[in-house]
């Protein structure tokens, strides 16, 4: 393992068995299908993709909530073994998790103090003064101030943004090395989204924290991470430095995603958007070959619909794309389009 890497994911597969009548296996939902990547210590990386492409399944597998069918997770030099309880306890304390759906995330009948104390109690921090001290520090970091006013509040007394900051505080109170933030701001208004992303970024720098930021909203990634991965149909189809992907997307799916975003501009009324029709693939019966080929206007018959493309370089440092168009150096999306 390269010394700088905090997390190394290798050939991870998470499939969900789909059963009929409770016992007849109909097939597998291939939510995570052969995914590999690394996160360095102190690095923020974004994972984007549309609803149902497997982002949360990947996050939960990394967190040890799902057992992978195949593949390895290497954290800080240790290959995780899900049957080793002691090791998993150590690991869970090192990884903070902000789950999707902030509204269901906080227990309604607990005060903020209780909510934030809970993870420390579970992880054996017995000194109650130390617990309070940590709670206060974390709340201050997340601008839940004046702290004393907030400690006795219940979740329903908080705005959506404050609730979300509480969820983040809970994930950070054990001082983890890695934070997995699954759509941490998607449910919030744009007017408060940026505040929370900026706060998260500041904390990431100050704590030298590794962060995996999961979102379906491509337009926020630039403000958060340096590296980005695009997921489609359970697979990572493109990975790149953020700026590079936004300026020169390589995968036809990434290109379509960027086209689909509406910038607030009055000119938009006059033009139609160029987006592929069709729907995201079924993960139960995914298409052969490249998962995107049924929607792709550059499809190469006999190749894209038959063989799964490996990662190819596409000219720029650290920019890789799983698309057959790039199988020869210097080639890519045909010009005529």
């Amino acid at each position, binding site marked *: 393992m390269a010394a700088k890497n905090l997390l190394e994911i290798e050939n991870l597969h998470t499939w969900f068995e789909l059963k009929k009548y409770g016992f007849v296996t109909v097939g597998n939902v291939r939510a995570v299908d052969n995914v590999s990547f690394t996160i360095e210590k102190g690095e923020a990386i974004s994972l984007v993709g549309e609803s149902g492409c497997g982002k949360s399944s990947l996050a939960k597998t990394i967190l040890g909530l799902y057992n992978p069918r195949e593949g390895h997770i290497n954290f800080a030099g240790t290959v995780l073994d899900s049957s080793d309880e002691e090791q998993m306890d150590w690991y869970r304390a090192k990884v903070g998790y902000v789950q999707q759906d902030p509204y269901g995330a906080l227990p309604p009948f607990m005060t903020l103090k209780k909510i934030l104390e809970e993870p420390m109690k579970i992880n054996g921090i017995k000194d109650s003064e130390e617990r309070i001290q940590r709670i206060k520090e974390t709340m201050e970091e997340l601008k839940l101030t004046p702290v004393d006013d907030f400690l006795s509040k219940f979740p329903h007394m908080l705005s959506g943004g404050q609730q979300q900051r509480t969820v983040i505080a809970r994930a950070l109170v054990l001082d983890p090395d890695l934070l997995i933030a699954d759509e941490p701001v998607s449910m919030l208004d*744009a007017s408060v989204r940026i505040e929370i992303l900026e706060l998260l970024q500041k904390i990431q720098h100050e704590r030298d924290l590794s962060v995996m930021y999961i979102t379906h909203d*491509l337009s926020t990634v630039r403000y958060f991470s340096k590296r980005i991965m695009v997921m489609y149909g359970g697979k990572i189809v493109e990975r790149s430095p953020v700026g590079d992907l936004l300026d020169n997307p390589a995968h036809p799916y990434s290109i379509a995603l*960027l086209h689909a975003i509406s910038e607030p501009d009055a000119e938009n009324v006059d033009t139609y958007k160029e987006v592929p029709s069709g729907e995201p693939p079924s993960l139960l019966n995914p298409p052969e070959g490249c998962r995107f080929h049924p929607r792709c206007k550059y499809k190469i018959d006999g190749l894209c619909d038959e063989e799964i493309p490996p990662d190819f370089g596409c000219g720029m440092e650290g920019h890789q794309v799983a698309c057959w168009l790039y199988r020869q150096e210097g080639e890519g999306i045909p010009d005529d389009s």
Partner: protein
Amino acid sequence: MEERKYLDIEDIELFFSTSEGTVRAVDKVSFGLPRGESMVVVGESGCGKSSLGNAILRLLPRNTEKYEGHVFLNSEDLMSLSDEKFRHDIRWNRLALVPQAAMNSLNPVIKVQDQVAEPLLVHDMVDNKEQAKDRVVKSFRRVGVPTDFLQRYPFELSGGMKQRVSIAMSLVTEPDIVILDEPTSALDMLTQANIMNVLKRIKEELGISFILITHDIGTSSEIADRAAVMYAGQIVEYTDARNFFGDPLHPYSIKLMSSVPRLDVDKDLDYIPGQPPSLLNLPEGCYFAERCHKRFEKCSQEPPLFEVEDDWHVKCWLYK
């Protein structure tokens, strides 16, 4: 007196009573929409967007405490109609609404073609089932649902297809105005873009007016001729889309616009500190003052909606 717009809303109010007091969800809202034009209503969660849509369609919850004002449609005051007449002559017929999360409220045990046909049959707009089916097929084609989906049940459709079915249902009676409450916010980006294309085409071909309710400002620009910004139950700015997306005037609109992340420019983003006031307990003066970067003495009094330029209304003392 000013000439009435095709749809003309005047001082409409919708208050709810709760155990904690009165919620002023729609607080003296006025605007006019010319025939065939589309507008968006944008604003933060809880500012009263859905309530405004419901108020226009007279869809009132049980705990409605106050429902007043005027809704003129082609100069006829709809408020003077009986509930019965409103239901029969106006709702679906001339004004339709696709409610928030409509795709999840399709009836799971009825085939989609029968659900979409329902408004036609209920309103005696067709003579027989065959005619109804023709209209349904037409409506499906318009929104891009393959006609072999006619016989399906909602659970057999993806989210995007269900949303299209909901829109098809609102179009089947060919109303003049369709209110769409957050029609794409639960959908994928590509599906969202596809549906916005569909709406645009319908607007062009049929001349239907859409009132699009959304908190997604980027998407809202896709079909907006005009834009209304709502804050704490009130409209604080109402103008042509070019004005709004180009150079909004109200400090709230300005902040709202600069909090939208952009792909094309690497600009610094802004956010609005604090949170909107509770609609149960509104402050004196301008409701936005507490969070406003341009606040001055005058703001302790409530500003009226000033007409800054022709057709550009701003509720802020800066534009007196």
